[in-house]
Each structure stands twice: as structure tokens, then as C-alpha cells.
């Protein structure tokens, strides 16, 4: 038998940061705004919750500047569940991130759902011990975020719409670009790095692995169990559901159904079964009806 002294280990290493995301795979991360909602999410089988002051649909409706949530909300949610608790910081707002790290949030989402604080630079996530997840619409954006230290990626979709079309577009784009990379000659990689605006070393790693070097969830518009299974079949490692649960008629039942659909995404019989009797889904928004200035997915550089 062996015995080792505690606290001799290394904290905040890449393996530890990316590793937590690997533990979340095949699971559903749910937006919550109260300890009660967090408990409903955990009870339904969520692998983590995202602690927010308002879900994206309400942020969209309210307009104005959306910021990091009040620390009291995040702390109360952390005290109410045992699953990991994530929280959002504005793009480029490294002080909000410092505050979230001090609070003990398990993952920070540098998120386009909030109003960006910097229109040129994202947070230097390598400086933090706590891991970050960032949004991306394509491979170049994903690799830029990973280059800055993101240990997990999520395709953006269009948050708060209950419309899965943008989530599909962004995940397909990333998967297509990864597949295309496999067909390129080694000699063509630098030009492709330039085209995509992606760091060469990371692009080279994606070519070697045949996938992103970190876990990639799908987000932004998922409202039904079928939506979740669709994104899983398209190649997502897991699912973020924002407004889709607590803006629906029966959040507990819908949350559970989305969890089951994410596990059994390849089994249409299970999907048919879990899709029954869920009550009304959240009201959806047609993307073309959204004012260009109110699109969240275009935030991030």
C-alpha cells in the first residue's frame, strides 16, 4: 500500500481543467436562476448547472447591458446542489472571472449571452486555475478560444430563441471543417491556419486527432428531447439547455426527458417514449425576425 502527503499535487493543470469537461460528456448542463431550479435540474439528472440572474430569453427581452450575476445568487446555488456549478462572465471581463474564481465556481463561461466588455480581446484564460468554456461558431473561433486557454468549447447557436437552426449550423460547420482538415496535405496546413484564423499548432493537433482537442457541447436554441438527440447525432459531446427548460410549461418533466434523450440519442424508440406528454415547449423565435444588433452569436472575435 502506498501513502502520499496531501497538497503536494499540482492544481489548475490543463489535464485537471479539460478533465472536468470530459466527466460531463453525454450529459446536460442546465441554466438555473434559483436554488429551487438548481434542485429540479439536479433531480432530473443534470451533470452541472449554470447559475444565472436571468435566462437568455429574459436577457433578450429585457435588453440593456447584461452582466455577471450577483455573487449571492451563485453562492446560494452552489450551496444547494452537489453537481458542478458554472457561471458566466462577460467576454473580455477578466475581473468578473476573477470574482467567479474567488467564489469557487467550478467552470466559467465567457459568454456572448452577456454584453461584451472588450470588443477586441477575450480573457487570457491560461492565467486562471478554474477552467473556462467558450462559445464558437466555427473551427477557427474554437481554436482561438482554446489557444487563450479554454478547456471546453460549446457551439453557440442563438441563445434564448428555442430555435435549434443556428445550433445545427454551428456544429455542422465545426464538424465539416474538422473533416476537411483530414483531407488536407501537411503542406497545406499553414494556409488553412491563415484562412481559419486558427493557431497552427492547434490546427495540426486537430488534424492528428480527427476531432477538437477539448470537449465540445452544443448550445443555443435546444428546447426539446429531439433537439438534444439531433445535436448528439451530429457529433456534440453533450448539451447546454438555457431557456428551454424553465421557460417551458413543465420544467421537471422536460429536464428529465432531455437528459434521457441525450443518453439514448441513437434510439428512436426511447426518444419517442420520452417525448410524450411534456406540455408546451418554450415559445420559439424565427431567426430572421431578430434584429441584427440583437444577435448574440456574433459577439466574440
Amino acid at each position, binding site marked *: 500500500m502506498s501513502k*502520499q502527503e496531501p497538497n503536494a499535487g499540482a*492544481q489548475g493543470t490543463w489535464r485537471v481543467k479539460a478533465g472536468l469537461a470530459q*466527466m460531463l460528456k453525454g450529459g446536460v448542463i442546465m441554466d438555473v436562476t434559483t436554488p429551487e431550479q438548481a434542485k429540479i435540474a439536479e433531480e432530473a*439528472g443534470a451533470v452541472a448547472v449554470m447559475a444565472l440572474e436571468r435566462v437568455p430569453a429574459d436577457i433578450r427581452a429585457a435588453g440593456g447591458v447584461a452582466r455577471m450575476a450577483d455573487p449571492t445568487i451563485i453562492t446560494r446555488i452552489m450551496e444547494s446542489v452537489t453537481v458542478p456549478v458554472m457561471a458566466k462572465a462577460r467576454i473580455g471581463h477578466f475581473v468578473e472571472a476573477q470574482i467567479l474564481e474567488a467564489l469557487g465556481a467550478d467552470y466559467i463561461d465567457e459568454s456572448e449571452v452577456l454584453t461584451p466588455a472588450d470588443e477586441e480581446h477575450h480573457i487570457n484564460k491560461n492565467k486562471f486555475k*478554474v477552467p473556462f468554456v467558450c462559445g464558437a461558431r466555427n473551427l477557427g473561433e474554437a481554436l482561438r478560444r482554446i489557444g487563450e486557454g479554454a478547456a471546453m468549447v460549446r457551439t453557440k447557436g442563438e441563445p434564448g430563441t428555442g430555435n435549434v437552426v443556428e445550433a445545427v449550423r454551428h456544429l455542422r460547420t465545426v464538424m465539416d471543417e474538422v473533416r476537411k482538415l483530414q483531407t488536407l496535405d501537411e503542406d497545406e496546413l499553414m494556409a488553412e491556419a491563415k484562412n481559419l484564423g486558427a493557431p497552427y499548432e492547434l490546427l495540426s493537433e486537430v488534424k492528428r486527432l480527427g476531432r477538437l482537442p477539448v470537449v465540445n457541447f452544443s448550445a443555443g436554441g435546444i428546447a426539446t428531447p429531439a433537439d438534444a438527440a439531433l445535436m448528439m447525432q451530429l457529433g456534440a459531446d453533450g448539451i447546454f439547455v438555457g431557456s428551454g427548460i424553465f421557460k417551458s410549461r413543465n420544467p421537471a418533466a422536460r429536464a428529465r426527458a432531455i437528459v434521457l434523450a441525450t443518453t439514448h440519442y441513437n*434510439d428512436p424508440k426511447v426518444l419517442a417514449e420520452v417525448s410524450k406528454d411534456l406540455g408546451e415547449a418554450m415559445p420559439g423565435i424565427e431567426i430572421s425576425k431578430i434584429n441584427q444588433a440583437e444577435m448574440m452569436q456574433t459577439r466574440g472575435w
Partner: protein
Amino acid sequence: MAPRVGVLDLQGDVAEHVEALQRAGAETFRIKRVEQLADLDGLVIPGGESTAIGKLMTRYGFMDAIPREARRGMGVYGTCAGLILVATEIDGSSQPRLGLIDMVAKRNAFGRQRESFEIDLDLPELGKEPVRAVFIRAPYVGSVGPGVRVLARVGEKIVMASAGKHLVTAFHPELTEDPRVHRYFLDLLGKS
């Protein structure tokens, strides 16, 4: 003949365990339904969220089927979340568990994510080179009953133990390239 080992594929780092088992020399299967357990020599319960995996296991009949197959002779290896689910007792929780190893599991016992760590763990049974052990919001084993072998500790905390063909680690050998812990599990399966 290579041992037939399943990885419970409800949620968690399933692919990483499949790859680690293949490196160690097993024939692997992803297990989504209880019928698939029938002729396995071993089963891995991966890292993930223990509450989420536990609920899915209950819903799909694994809480009864896994102990039944274990009585038939199937060995079970639980990492992290899997460690919690394999225990007879979970400190401060009444969530369902398999009760395959007589021990008390303590959840999130090293702290939140920022306290997660990796460390070189001396495991003389696996050879001279230490094992790089990755602990992510890890549990540990508070105490064990008779017949349970403690294989490693960090400080006073038990982080690896075995009983018969069953094995638990609080850390994630599947996140490194080192196949020795998975090979150790395959060796346990070979013993009668």
C-alpha cells in the same frame, strides 16, 4: 483470450475508458442496456456525475442487474463517480448505490474544481514508476470493512481499494496514457 469488458455508457468519460482498456488488452463494449451485461467478464463505471449516472442506472434497471452479474462473477471497476456508486454507504446521501465493496464513500471530498489536482502516486504493486493520478472534484473512501484491500492513500484518505474482482480509484487513470491501472483490473478479472 482477451477479457470482455464493458464500459457503462450512460454518461461520463466513456471513450477514454474504452481506449484505456484497449491499451491494456481488453475486448471492449459500450453498455447502454442491461441485456448487454450478460456475458461480460468485467464492467467499468466511468467518471462522470454520480447523481446523473445513478439516476440513469436506476431508471434502466442497472442497480439490480449489476449486482446480479457480479454474483455471477463479473468484476466491476469504478472511477471517481463510479467509486461512489460501487460503495455500500455514501456519506450524507441516500442515493441508490450498488453496494459491491464494503466501504463508505465521501463525495467531493477534496473540495471544488479549483482544488482539483494531479499527483505522482507510488503504487508498488504496479511497478517502480509512480502513477500520475488525476483527481477531479474527487471523492475518497472514508473507511473500509473487512476483506477490502487498501491500495493507495493521499494523506490519510484512501484513494484506491479492491475487494475480490472489484476495484475503485478516486482518480482517473483513463486521462493518462499509462495502462497499468486498467491492466491491474484485467488481472483481477483473471483470478477466480
